[in-house]
């Protein structure tokens, strides 16, 4: 029924908030719960019959394209890139991709923000959109601190959007824009090919015409574009996996809470893993290791008796024997923490060796070298 639907994923720019990880890999390809971030969205779109996904990017399409060809084949979905030559904001990219998004079918198209992780109840969103007959539908989600974001004020019974309030000082509501939209093709007529904000310029106009409707997103929601939220997001995601697909989670006497382990990873004796841990392909977790609330990327080796918590360990890094890595330590690609070292919130750029303890959160400076040799 929806086979010919299209979708646009707003990938955006350099992913600076997820550095040092994004120094090695473009943000959409950074794995979350052992799967590239963007694949979570593409799979959700494919599941409800979207046939073509357009990625709105302004950075490094070549690296992306190789991966995308791979996903295309595996998933049987068409993936194209729409590259901005200048930043176009949150609405401009839609105008840029106009030709790819509309065809004679007249079907609405999805727009997703690539940093968002959720259960993607897209089928329900389609039904909601059809039922209200408006021009645009957005998902909203309830948050504890709405003033950090833009609040969407709606009429409770219908979900009709009354107005947007950016970072309100007084409480006006607790629902914020979840970054998931379903738009009729006519919305594109409202967007010029210039830097435009969809929340500030486009949606308010549609709302004024009483044609914008908001649905409360069921399930969890997280913007995982920065490390702290990435780690919280993993907990929410694995919680959801426990409810919907618990067979994917690891079991065993060494497992506590929700843990995801790639089948090619090896875990030694006397370990205690979890809660809220993701271990990627080819990882080696030696004996006596404690992991909690952390992500271990592909090819990492955690040596004996080490303890890692609340951290992200980048691809092919190693954590030495008896080392202690915690409190939002983010290790980039190919970082080696020596034996017995303590890292408390260290942010370490790729290809470095950590030989002395980091007692307070800090960024390990990157020294420019003439060649690419490890320091």
């Amino acid at each position, binding site marked *: 029924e929806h086979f010919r639907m299209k979708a646009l994923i707003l990938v955006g720019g350099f992913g600076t908030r997820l550095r040092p990880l994004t120094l090695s890999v473009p943000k959409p390809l950074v794995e979350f719960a052992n799967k590239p971030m963007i694949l979570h969205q593409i799979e959700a779109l494919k599941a409800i019959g979207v046939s073509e996904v357009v990625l709105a990017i302004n950075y490094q399409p070549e690296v992306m394209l190789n991966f995308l060809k791979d996903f295309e084949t595996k998933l049987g979905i068409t993936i194209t890139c729409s590259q901005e030559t200048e930043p176009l904001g949150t609405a401009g990219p839609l105008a840029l991709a106009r030709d790819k998004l509309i065809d004679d079918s007249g079907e609405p198209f999805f727009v997703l923000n690539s940093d968002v992780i959720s259960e993607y109840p897209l089928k329900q969103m389609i039904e909601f959109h059809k039922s209200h007959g408006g021009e645009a539908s957005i998902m909203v989600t309830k948050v504890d601190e709405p003033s950090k974001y833009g609040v969407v004020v709606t009429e409770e019974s219908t979900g009709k959007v009354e107005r947007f309030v950016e970072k309100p000082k007084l409480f006006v509501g607790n629902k914020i824009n979840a970054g998931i939209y379903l738009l009729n093709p006519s919305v594109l007529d409202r967007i010029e090919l210039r830097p435009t904000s969809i929340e500030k310029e486009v949606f308010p106009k549609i709302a004024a015409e009483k044609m914008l409707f908001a649905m409360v997103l069921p399930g969890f929601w997280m913007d995982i574009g920065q490390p702290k939220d990435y780690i919280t997001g993993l907990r929410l995601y694995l919680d959801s996996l426990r409810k919907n697909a618990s067979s994917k989670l690891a079991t065993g006497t060494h497992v506590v809470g929700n843990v995801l382990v790639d089948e090619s990873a090896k875990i030694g004796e006397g370990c*205690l893993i979890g809660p809220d841990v993701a271990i990627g392909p080819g990882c080696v977790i030696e*004996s006596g290791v404690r992991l909690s609330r952390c992500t271990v990327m592909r090819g990492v080796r955690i040596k004996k*008796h080490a*303890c890692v918590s609340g951290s992200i360990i980048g691809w092919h890094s190693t954590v030495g024997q008896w080392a202690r890595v915690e409190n939002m330590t983010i290790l980039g690609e190919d970082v080696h923490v020596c034996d017995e070292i*303590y890292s408390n919130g260290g942010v370490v750029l790729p290809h470095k060796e950590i030989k002395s303890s980091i007692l307070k959160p800090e960024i390990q400076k990157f020294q420019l070298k003439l060649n690419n040799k490890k320091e």
Partner: protein
Amino acid sequence: MGSSDERVVAVIMVGGPTKGTRFRPLSLNIPKPLFPLAGQPMVHHPISACKRIPNLAQIYLIGFYEEREFALYVSSISNELKVPVRYLREDKPHGSAGGLYNFRDLIMEDNPSHIFLLNCDVCCSFPLPEMLVAHRRYGGIGTILVIKVSPESANEFGELVADPSTNELLHYTEKPETFVSDRINCGVYVFTPDIFTAIQGVSSQRKERANLRRMSSFEALQSATRSLPTDFVRLDQDILSPLAGKKQLYTYETMDFWEQIKTPGMSLKCSALYLAQFRFTSPYLLATGDGTKTAAVIGDVFVHPSAKVHPTAKNLLTLNYAQIGPNVSISANARIGPGVRLISCIVLDDVEVKENAVVIHAIVGWKSSIGRWSRVQGEGDYNAKLGITILGEAVTVEDEVVVVNSIVLPNKTLNVSVQQEIIL
């Protein structure tokens, strides 16, 4: 040469509970002289050094602690070393020389030809027999052990100037503001019984002045000693300084290590120095092991025979024995679990260190419990206030908790990580 009639008595000043407050919180539980360094009470090191003195008749420990605090130790060490050791309590402060004088009758009972005076909180190689030989050669009333230090640190101590050929003490100043000399007083001396005459001399002089003051207001303008009791005689200011340059006092220089054990951080450093010394004097005291049948030992390590270092927990096969050292001292009945890493630390009696825990630059108090995968760590700056981590008696560090550069007073349970804090 000394004849076999020439008996020697050694006196070790051990201080008291109101002194050495910098040694808290460890001194809340144990008199500082009994705190273990390299597995033996602090006072044991000068005591066993005294044992090497030919014709040693008696060792006296003089201090302000209650007798009962030393009763057990003194009787057991007397038996162990087969030399009489006795603790004498000063009823009130007499000063560093006055204390010696106060017990002169007891000290002179054996009619010794020489009297050694040592400070318990000094960490060094105690070259006492060599000092005695030199002293006899010099023929003075006293010989002082001295060591060369960096000029910047010299003013923390008593600075001495000695004649380079005769080794006579020419000048002595306590903690001078300006630079006098880079040779300092180690707090180890050997005297002939004439020292008591010298001390009595100071005492009498003071009495006279006190009497004079009652008679003339001129003396009211006089020295700082007017407020000191007549029997309060300080070795440095009242004996060494005035006698310098009078061919009475001499110096003997040591080229070995020397430190003062004023703080817990320094006790960790001195424990390492004594462990290193054991490697030469008594290597059988140090632990060995390669991790296959017992702990893997790196560098100098002392493990009390009653301490247990476990291999595996439950029925695991590949978890290692602990890796211990360098510079680790483990006291009686401690239990060290599998996969533990200990570096530069003192683990006191009855401590339990659970699996995979890490302890670096720290002192773990008696009966404490260190949880699985927890981390107790200091930076290793022995002189800084929070340079090493100290856990008092019966502290519990729960699983996975990290304690860095902190001092934790007895009976606390830590269930969250701390850094740079003093936990009351």
